[in-house]
């Protein structure tokens, strides 16, 4: 039995469990064996003093749902080994919230161009420092702080 940090319910009755990030992978494996065969979504939340990763699980057999949350500083284990569909969700969470997923097969930006500085959904992202994007010779993205260098 894997220890749960705390347990509650959302307004519509979906159970929410907090799990420590060390126990995340064994816990998720157990949940998959229990019938939660689909990972609907992975998101990240910035609570200023810590970051949180939220996993929405669904059992396609009987429609049960489960929210798994884990607190982290910036790094957490990837669940791509359990649900391969987590790949792009984790890349998006890395891109916008800046959570690094250990053992992810291809952890790079998915929406923003390569070379972008910072993760825009963080509370401490500097909104007044605009970045500009242009295309390089070989069609790669180039990012700079100079408005003359791009759009």
């Amino acid at each position, binding site marked *: 039995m894997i220890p749960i940090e705390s347990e509650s319910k959302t307004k519509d009755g979906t159970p929410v469990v907090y799990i420590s990030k060390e126990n995340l992978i064994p816990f998720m494996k157990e949940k998959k064996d229990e019938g939660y065969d689909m990972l609907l979504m992975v998101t990240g939340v910035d609570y200023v003093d810590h970051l949180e990763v939220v996993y929405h699980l669904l059992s396609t057999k009987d429609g049960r749902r489960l929210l798994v949350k884990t607190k982290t500083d910036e790094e957490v284990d990837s669940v791509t080994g359990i649900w391969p569909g987590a790949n792009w969700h984790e890349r998006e969470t890395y891109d916008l919230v800046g959570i690094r997923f250990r053992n992810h097969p291809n952890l790079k930006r998915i929406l*923003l161009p390569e070379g972008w500085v910072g993760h*825009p959904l963080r509370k401490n*992202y500097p*909104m007044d420092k605009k*970045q*500009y*994007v242009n*295309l390089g010779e070989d069609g790669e993205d180039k990012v700079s702080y100079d408005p003359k260098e*791009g*759009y």
Partner: protein
Amino acid sequence: MTDSILLTTLDEALRWGKGKSLWPFTFGLACCAIEMMSAMGPDYDWARFGADVFRDSPRHADLMIVSGTVTKKMAPRIRRLYDQMAFPKYVISMGACASAGGPYVRGYSVVDGVDKVVPVDIYVYGCPPRPEALIQALKQLQDSIASGKVRH
């Protein structure tokens, strides 16, 4: 004397023909593109006005309708597609986003107006503009091409 009269008339006829044979470029960026598809669909059927078939290649097209939010990642690609279009070429900026950044203007990833990227002939306001507004913009563009006000 006769020559010059024949020339102006021919020029006018050519301009009229140019206006009536616009080939739009299949190119949708955000929610406005849904209204653009509606304008070309059977309900509004803008083929009636002589801009019927949307082309899939910039080299076949001469009208670019920027229908939606221009993100910073997309902007250099829009420029590249515009450069690949053959002359004469025209640009309609459709909706608040393409014209001035729209509701996302303060976002980290949005260009505030496609006129920073390519020259624009007609702006259409609305979020999104109704298909009638887009058709009106098309008519205006055709009239300005026919009267010689717009040339590229």
